[in-house]
């Protein structure tokens, strides 16, 4: 039904996944002593940066972002400003949630915040790209039967996969194996990234296999 859109989504996802891959591989060649465990924060920033840049570019090029009503520069600037604000607020939100989950409040606050930046760039950023800085739309998409397009469904799936990935990533922390990936926040950020990649693959596949059952209300 929406073959074109599914194909577009699959290619967009492929590009984003490739950017995650490149963000891991390229610094390893460029920076001395770069490794996912050893210089974890660096890896984390490089992945968040790459995903941010690539998704903004891809979704802008694809033209998914809802059309703005006004075309004045001031309005666009205010939208940009609001997007940045939401991005930052979402970082704070994730940080709070992670602390509520038991991360230490003061020590390793930087690690916790970096994790929340990663989570934000994997989830909230996509919301911003697809839905724009519009809280009503966000609430609509994340409530039951709220998806109105293929892109909304894809958004739901990737966000859910990322969060579940990060959630599952916390499991091995109490184990006494003394492995490098058990250090906070390595397992969680790895879990989130793997979940995100799974979501990128799963979203088009799931939509493709359920394209007969899916019906969307008109906007």
């Amino acid at each position, binding site marked *: 039904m929406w073959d074109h859109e599914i194909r577009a989504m699959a290619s967009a996802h492929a590009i984003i996944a490739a950017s995650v891959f490149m963000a891991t591989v390229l610094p390893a060649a460029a920076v001395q002593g770069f490794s996912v465990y050893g210089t974890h924060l660096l890896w984390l920033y490089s992945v968040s940066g790459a995903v941010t840049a690539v998704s903004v570019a891809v979704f802008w090029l694809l033209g998914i972002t809802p059309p703005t009503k006004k075309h004045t520069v001031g309005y666009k600037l205010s939208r940009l400003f609001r997007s940045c604000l939401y991005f930052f607020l979402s970082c704070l939100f994730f940080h709070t*949630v992670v*602390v*509520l*989950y*038991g991360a230490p409040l003061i020590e390793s606050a930087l690690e916790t915040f970096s994790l929340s930046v990663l989570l934000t760039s994997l989830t909230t950023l996509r919301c911003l790209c697809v839905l724009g800085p519009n809280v009503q739309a966000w*609430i609509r998409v994340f*409530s*039951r039967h709220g998806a109105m397009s293929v892109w909304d469904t894809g958004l739901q799936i990737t966000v859910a996969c990322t969060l579940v990935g990060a*959630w599952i990533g*916390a499991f091995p*922390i*109490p*184990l*006494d194996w003394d492995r490098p990936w058990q250090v906070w926040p390595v397992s969680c950020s790895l879990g989130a990234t793997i979940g995100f990649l799974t979501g990128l693959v799963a979203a088009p596949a799931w939509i493709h296999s359920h394209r007969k059952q899916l019906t969307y209300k008109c906007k």
Partner: protein
Amino acid sequence: MKVRSSVFASFILIFEGIGIALFLRGFFPVPLKSSVSSKNKLSDLPVEPLTGSSPNSSRLPQPLFKRVVIMLVDALREDFVFGPNGRMYMPYTRHLVERGSSHSFVAKARPPTVTMPRIKALTTGSIPGFIDVVMNLNSPALLEDNLIWQAKTAGKKIVFYGDDTWVRLFPKHFMEHDGTTSFFVSDYTEVDNNVTRHLDSTLKRDDWDILILHYLGLDHIGHISGPHSSLIQPKLMEMDDILKKIHSALISKEAEGSLPYLLVLCGDHGMSETGSHGGSSEPEINTPLVLLSPAFKRKAGMEKPGVVEQVDLPPTLALGLGLPISLNSVGRIIPGVLEETSLRDQLRYLHLNGHQLSCLLKDSIPDYEKEVGFEQFRVAEKAHGSWMKLFLEGNTSEVLSNMGKKVLKQYVEALAAMSSALSKQLGKYDMYSMIAGMVFVFQLLLVLLLAMPEALSSDAAVELPVLSALLSLPFYLLCLLLASVHVLVCTSAESSCYFCSLSWGLVFAAVAFSSAMFCILVSLVTRRLPLGLRIHGKSPLRSIGSEWSLSELDVLLLAGTVGHTLSLAASSFVEEEHQTWYFLLNTLCLAVFQDVCRKYFREQRGSGDEEESILPSKDCHPSPKAEIYSEKWLALATPPFTLLCCRLLRSLNQTGVQWAHLPDMGHWLNSSEHRTVLSLLAAFCLVFVYLLVQRRCSWVSKVALAFGLLGVYSYRAAVGNVLFPWQHSGRTTSKGTVEARFVYVFILGILFTGTKDLLRSQIITSDARLKSRGLWEIYSGLVLLMSLLFRAHNLPVLCCCLLIQTLMAQFIWKKLHYDAAQTTIMHYWFGQAFFYFQGNSNNIATVDISVGFVGLESYVEAPAIFLTALSTYAGPLLWACHLVCFLSSQRDRSPVAVGHGCYCLALLRSVPAAAYIVLVTALRYHLFIWSVFSPKLLYESMHLLLTAGVCLFFNTMEQSHTSSKS
């Protein structure tokens, strides 16, 4: 037979309790000792047997050795010394074994082959079990009679270098010590160098009698890379050099005329083919034991080393040093060591050892007279007496020495028989009882699971085909079969078995019960079968609702329950179980938050009339709009607030193992300079508790509660935890018995009022409001008791518990229409998390025993145990009681809610308990079985017992409900 769900659930739980008790009896062997702290004294020694004349001297024979050096190499496997590679690994030792004046043996260690129990075995001569851990609950020091204590009491100077487990086990026993930790497994050179560095100076000195060295490096290498790694050889060569150094130092010190030295090389346990240990495989239990002393005969060549038990070393050493044998030792002296002494002394040594064993036998086995060894010992003792008589008369004929040899042989046989009879009692799992217990529990669990659709149906009653099962032919056949299996197992079992020693009536009842359960199970299965796959493997929540789709919350609740049960298989997850619950609870709160958001935001956007039907409270208020508005925001604020509370409580008490050392609020509050803060906090919490609890009580209970809480504060002030505003600092702290009893009076008063209200509501008026008030009063009595028992810094836990309960009940559970099963699971999770918020863990050491003395002048067993259990399980109990209150107040919405809640609670408790006993059985040779899994097993069974109590309470509630309806 049709029974209500709550009756059914409590019945199942009680029988599961019996099954688990049987399992526990099989799992924890009873200790042999008559008393833990009594010690063997020199004056208690038996006299040398002598027929006829007056008693002979009771002195010990002369000690054999002047100095003893024990070189204990952790994880030294038997084949490292005696095997084909031994010549390469430890050339000097091997040379001594083959040519020197030495004795070598293969000493068998008993599982669990872990360092700490092995050290205990090597010093006490007993086989330590888990009960030992429970016996010396909070003290890591070894209280039992042991070799080190005996040596210290006899004035021997002991020097120790090595694993600091020894230092913890024997504090203040050593003249000089240096403990190294075995914490960093990856370090295998430094740990040993730390031991060896003292060696030169110590060997030069003459001021010690016993030197103990415990080398950990080999064990660490085993853990890192296994017994075939390239690191093994250098390490063993190093050990060999150390042995050579000690040996030559001892030889050079050897003076004419004085007693000889003894050098012991041994291992505490072996090493499996993968390098680990803890189990009972051959390479793990076989350790070398090499005794070197000029007192021994020189060897002529390699002989096959004899096999002894590891526990044989302590009596040998004790007698060799002229010390009494430890009371609980089950070992027997190694005869080879005595070879060179006179026949009279040899007999005397064996007699002493035999006497000690026979005393232990008398204490531990009820019909000890029937034991073969005991009989043999009596005979040998008599023969010994007559031999002594002849000997003292100066008879020196060939006949006498032959007779002496015969007595010797008799003694050796008697010792072997007694020792094996004793060790059969110890350190062995009674598998038959364990399996029987497990079968009971699983039958009951399956019946519970299969009854799910009926138990959670709208009439909440289960149809149990008891009569048809009892009258069916398979039942009788099964009875016969099981009885014959029982007879077969019991007659063929070589070790003692608790289930076999039960009386016939009990066993038959058990057999009949088990077969009846099996028949019921089969008939339930056949009844479900037509419904087919739809029923099988389904969840508790699915069957309640008419729609079959699961919401996110249901998925979370199910996944959490299953995931938690599975996580119990990993020792780290058992140690850090609090993390699991905090994590799940957090996720639960977020899921609830999402539900709330969805409800209020989505429905606001939706049509207005939908909203009206959902909020029925609207019409009874003058300004409905504002009311709804504030209610919406309160409901929205509840989950984040709960999250915040949980996060704060979590930092109140650090628990578990890995992060237990981190500073927490509890320590901060308890330090003396923060006394004022603690006092203010406690006072605030008590006031808050009063405000939260009083609103649903009658005025009598309100007054009693107020006085009670005041009493709690004055009790804390009297004990010295908090400050009274007008109290002078000069007042001495008392035990606070008067204050505590004052509070007890009010607790009883509140409970009495509550019961009275309940009875009145049931018999006279059948008034639902009166009943819920009575229930709430009983609950507030419990709260008052908990506030008395909780430590002052834990009062915020109680406070937050009540606050969360109030908010959740008001805004979440009622408004979001969660059904009884969902509410029960949430209550259960909260209860579990609060168990850990209080500072509990799965370690026995965190049980607060001081609670048992609140309001008591001295230790009285029954109330002390009751109070300790109550305060330990305060969290789960409070939440379960709140569940009763909440569900019975929801009766108008769903009349069978109480039954459903009870059933779910029983299911939630029995699934992990049943899974856990299987896990423990499977992991019974695990490295951490005694330190991690066994305490958890005790906690699980205690929790099951308490839940059975709560279910009975549920039962009476539902009973009164049905009777009041009719």
